[in-house]
């Protein structure tokens, strides 16, 4: 990534540059956010020749305000991660998914599928989620150790969303691969398909994300053709094929973009809530013991895990008119970025925000965002994390992190790439 100019760097509070994936990879962002909340709650983070500058929002109330004004702060000009780049990826392709769609079309598209994601739909699916969880754990049963990310935490969200879309199991590893390329594009580990001299460069990241999107979209175009020829009852792809908005069928591009979003959003976040959850439980043995002694604390422990890990670091919006946040003037066309891990440790909202407390109450964290774009999969994510820890801690009560987690280099996803664990009690 090209560094920002020395003049621009001099304007940064304490030199904190939130464009630096390294800050997040090293897990040092919380200290940076603490300083920003106290000293510069709305500050301008200059861009580079390759990245747009943006207003950085770190206070809970400011995230609420922006999320609840989807006409003033729009999503269609890029929502983050690689969307910090201009032009936003996907621009010019003519199709976008709900996450980069604004009112009034947004809610019409969302309503095509949202019945499949309600609390009731989740409840009906619970036995299946538990069965899949146990199949995953069966595969590591009897071993002393494993890579928790590759073998456990990534596998459940993958199975759940791919199952809902009606994708056969043989395709799941490819989905895992594509989502890593798309959301992990800035990390050299996922740049295996670019020329060696491009690995680790900005161009390598751009090419990697584009390659992942191209491959995933190609895959879904084939699936779509198949569903049109052989309609099925109730998978999400078939529902989209049959759907109309304003009296018109969705285009191939619309459906492919929707599928792409569901797979990416369903995988990369929940995986890291589970991995991050195990890490934080191992770091807080007393809280963990409390949970293992009383599994009825699990739902509230899951909320605290979500607050603590905030699997998505940010979402961004663009202002459509001149406005103000916390007295700071924001001009039409400027970007604002909402930093979820910071809002979720805001001293004005959370008592002792740096304490991991599995019975925290109230715990109205913003890990899933709020309002118009509130995470469609929140119910599934919560159920997956809860069921995974119920079964994991029941079957492997002595599981321990056994080595340093390898973290993702990204200011978008709070990712863990590899996590060595010991499954049984140390001998």
């Amino acid at each position, binding site marked *: 990534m090209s560094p920002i100019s020395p003049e621009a760097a001099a304007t940064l509070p304490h030199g904190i540059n939130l464009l630096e994936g390294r800050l997040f990879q090293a897990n040092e962002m919380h200290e940076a956010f603490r300083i920003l909340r106290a000293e510069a709650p709305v500050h301008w983070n200059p861009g580079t020749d390759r990245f747009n500058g943006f207003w950085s929002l770190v206070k809970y109330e400011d995230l609420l305000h922006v999320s*609840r004004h989807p006409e003033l702060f729009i999503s269609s000009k890029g929502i983050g991660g690689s969307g910090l780049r201009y032009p936003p990826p996907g621009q010019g392709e003519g199709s976008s998914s709900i996450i980069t769609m604004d009112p009034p079309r947004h*809610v019409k598209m969302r*309503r095509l599928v*949202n*019945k499949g*994601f*309600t*609390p*009731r739909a989740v409840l009906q699916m619970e036995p299946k989620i538990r069965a899949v969880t146990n199949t995953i754990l069966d595969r590591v049963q009897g071993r002393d150790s494993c890579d928790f990310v590759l073998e456990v935490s990534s596998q459940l969200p993958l199975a759940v969303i791919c199952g809902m879309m009606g994708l056969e199991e043989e395709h799941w590893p490819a989905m895992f691969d594509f989502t890593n390329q798309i959301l992990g594009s800035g990390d050299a580990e996922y740049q295996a398909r670019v020329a060696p001299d491009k690995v680790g460069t900005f161009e390598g990241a751009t090419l990697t994300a584009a390659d992942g999107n191209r491959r995933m979209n190609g895959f879904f175009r084939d699936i779509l053709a198949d569903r049109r020829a052989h309609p099925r009852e109730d998978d999400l792809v078939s529902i989209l094929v049959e759907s109309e908005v304003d009296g018109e069928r969705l285009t191939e591009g619309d459906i492919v973009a929707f599928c792409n979003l569901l797979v990416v959003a369903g995988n990369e976040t929940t995986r890291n809530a589970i991995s991050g959850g195990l890490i934080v439980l191992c770091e807080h043995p007393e809280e963990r013991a409390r949970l293992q002694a009383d599994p009825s604390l699990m739902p509230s422990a899951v909320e605290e895990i979500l607050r603590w890990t905030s699997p998505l670091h940010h979402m961004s919006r663009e202002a459509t008119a001149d406005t103000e946040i916390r007295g700071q003037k924001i001009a039409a066309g400027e970007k604002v970025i909402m930093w979820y891990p910071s809002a979720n440790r805001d001293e004005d909202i959370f008592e002792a925000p740096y304490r991991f407390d599995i019975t925290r109450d109230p715990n*109205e964290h913003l890990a*899933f965002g*709020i*309002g*118009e774009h*509130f995470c469609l999969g*929140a*119910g599934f994510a919560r159920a997956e994390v809860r069921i995974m820890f119920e079964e994991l801690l029941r079957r492997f009560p002595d599981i321990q992190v056994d080595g340093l987690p390898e973290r993702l280099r990204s200011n978008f996803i709070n990712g863990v790439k590899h996590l060595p664990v010991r499954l049984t009690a140390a001998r």
Partner: protein
Amino acid sequence: MSRRVEVDQQMCEGHGKCQAAAPEVFEHRDEDDLSHVILDEVPDALTAKVDRAIRLCPRQAIRWVS
């Protein structure tokens, strides 16, 4: 003084936060899996609870109507 409150059924996705915050005012119905307002007029004594429901609703589906 009492006021009226409304749930936008286009936005509601049945998360039930409103019923938890103000059970006197909101009811989750099984038939459509959505929240319904069960009081025509919200008395002053319940205003704070409704304000809390409005704040907590993940979908921003609840609003006062003047």
